[in-house]
C-alpha cells in the first residue's frame, strides 16, 4: 500500500490523465492500473476534475456543425464495413445507383431505337413497292395515252380527208385479174394531194418480193404515185403529189416499184 501511495503522490497519474506522458510512460501506467485496481479510482477522480476544467473552458461550435458532424458518421446500418471504408461507401452506392439507372436508361433507349428503325424500315419497303407498282401503272397509262394520241391523229387525218369537200373520193374497182378487189383514192387537185384509205383497202395480200404501185393516168400516160403494202398500217397514206389526172390504177410490181406499169398485173382501176 505504501508503494501505491508513493506512486499516487508522484503526480504520474495526473500527467497520464492530462496527456503529458510519452507512449512508453503511458504503457507503464496502464500496466500499474491493471496490477493495482485501487489506482483506477484515483485516476477516475483526476480525470473527472480535468473534464470539468475543460468544460469550464467549453466553447459552443456553430449550430450547423452538429448536422455536418453527424452526417459524416456511418451509423449501425453499415457497421459490418470497416469504419474508414464506411465513409467512402456511404457516398459510393448513390453514385453507382446513378450509373445503374443511366445504363438502364441507355439500354431502354437503344431497344426503342432498334424497334423504331425496324418499323421505319418495313414502312420504307412497303412504300418502295407501292412506288414501283405506281410507276408501272403510270407507264401503262402513258403507253395507252400515246397509243390513243396516235390513233386520234390518224382518225383526225381520216376525218380531215373525208370531211374536206375539196377531196374527190375515187373508187377503184377490181379488174379481171382481181374481180373482188376495190379501194378508194382521195384526190385534192387544189392541193395536189393524193391519199389512199388503207382501212378501205380490199385487195389480196402481196408477198415480200412484190408491192402494189399506184398510178395516175394523165393525158393517157401513166404517172408513178408511189408504192404501198397491203400490210401497211390502217388509216390514210399520203402518196406522191399530183396536179391533174383522169384515172387511177394499181398494179402489182416487184418490190420498190417499176418505171412503167405492168399492165397484166393491174389489180384495180377507176376513172374520175
Amino acid at each position, binding site marked *: 500500500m505504501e508503494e501505491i501511495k508513493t506512486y499516487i*503522490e*508522484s*503526480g*504520474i497519474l*495526473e*500527467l*497520464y*490523465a*492530462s*496527456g*503529458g*506522458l*510519452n507512449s512508453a510512460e503511458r504503457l507503464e501506467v*496502464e500496466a500499474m*492500473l*491493471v496490477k493495482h485496481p485501487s489506482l*483506477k479510482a484515483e*485516476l*477516475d*477522480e*483526476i*480525470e*473527472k*476534475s*480535468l*473534464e*470539468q*476544467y*475543460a*468544460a*469550464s*473552458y*467549453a*466553447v*459552443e*461550435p*456553430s449550430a450547423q*456543425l*452538429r448536422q*455536418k*458532424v*453527424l452526417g*459524416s*458518421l*456511418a*451509423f*449501425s446500418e453499415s*457497421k459490418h464495413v470497416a*469504419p*474508414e471504408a*464506411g*465513409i467512402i461507401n456511404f457516398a459510393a452506392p448513390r453514385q453507382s445507383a446513378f450509373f445503374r439507372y443511366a445504363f438502364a436508361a441507355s439500354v431502354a433507349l437503344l431497344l426503342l431505337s432498334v424497334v423504331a428503325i425496324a418499323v421505319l424500315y418495313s414502312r420504307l419497303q412497303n412504300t418502295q413497292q407501292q412506288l414501283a407498282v405506281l410507276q408501272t401503272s403510270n407507264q401503262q397509262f402513258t403507253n395507252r395515252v400515246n397509243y390513243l394520241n396516235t390513233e386520234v391523229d390518224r382518225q383526225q387525218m381520216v376525218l380531215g380527208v373525208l370531211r374536206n369537200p375539196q377531196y374527190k373520193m375515187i373508187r377503184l374497182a377490181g379488174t379481171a385479174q382481181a374481180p373482188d378487189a376495190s379501194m378508194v383514192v382521195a384526190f385534192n387537185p387544189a392541193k395536189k394531194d393524193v391519199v389512199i384509205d388503207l382501212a378501205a383497202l380490199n385487195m389480196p395480200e402481196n408477198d415480200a418480193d412484190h408491192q402494189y404501185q399506184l398510178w395516175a393516168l394523165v393525158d393517157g400516160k401513166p404517172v408513178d404515185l408511189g408504192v404501198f403494202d397491203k400490210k401497211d398500217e390502217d388509216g390514210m397514206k399520203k402518196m406522191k403529189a399530183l396536179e391533174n389526172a383522169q384515172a387511177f390504177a394499181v398494179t402489182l410490181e416487184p418490190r420498190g416499184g417499176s418505171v412503167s406499169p405492168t399492165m397484166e398485173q393491174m389489180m384495180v382501176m377507176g376513172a374520175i
Partner: protein
Amino acid sequence: MYATKTFPLSKKKLALSENELVLALRQRDKIGAEALYDMYSSSLYGIIFRIVQHDEIAEDLLQEAFVKIWNSFASFDSSKGRLFTWMVNIARNLSIDKIRSKDFRNNSKNQDIENAVNFIDEQRSTAINPDILGVKELVQKLKPEQKSILDLVYFRGYTHVEAAEELGIPLGTVKTRMRMAIMTLRKFFN
C-alpha cells in the same frame, strides 16, 4: 432504451451516463453519436479552439475528431481511463498536428498563439460558458505556476519533459506542480 435527460446547456441536447453512452457507441447507434456530440462537442471545441485559434479550422478539426472517435471507437478501453480523456487525446493530437503542419504555419492569418492564449482565456472563457460557475474564482484559486503547467500539458499537448524545458524547471517539479494543480481542481469542483 437509454435514460436520456436534458442537458443543462440546451433543451434539445441529449445526455447519457458514460456507461450508456459507451454501450450506444459500441453498437454504433445514431443516438450514441448524437449524445456524444451534445455532451462533449463544446468541451472538445474549447480545447481545439485554444490550440488553433481559428473558427473554421477548429470546426473542421472537431468534425475530424468526431469521425476518428466514431470510427476507432473499438480501440477505446475503459480500463485505461475515462471516455472524455480518450477523446481529448484524439482532439488534442489532431489539433497539434494541424498547427505543426506547413500550410498552417504559412498562413499569415493565424495569430501568434503564445500571445493569444491569455487573451482568449480572458475574453471567452467566462463569456461563452456562463453555466459553469466561478471560472474566475477557479483561476484565482489556481496559482499561476499551476495554471501554466496545466495549460501547457492539458491544452497544448506538452509532455512533462517538454514542459520542464519550456518552464526551465526540473522534471520532478513539473510532476508536483501538476499534482497540486489537479488537487486544487478536485477540491474546487467537489
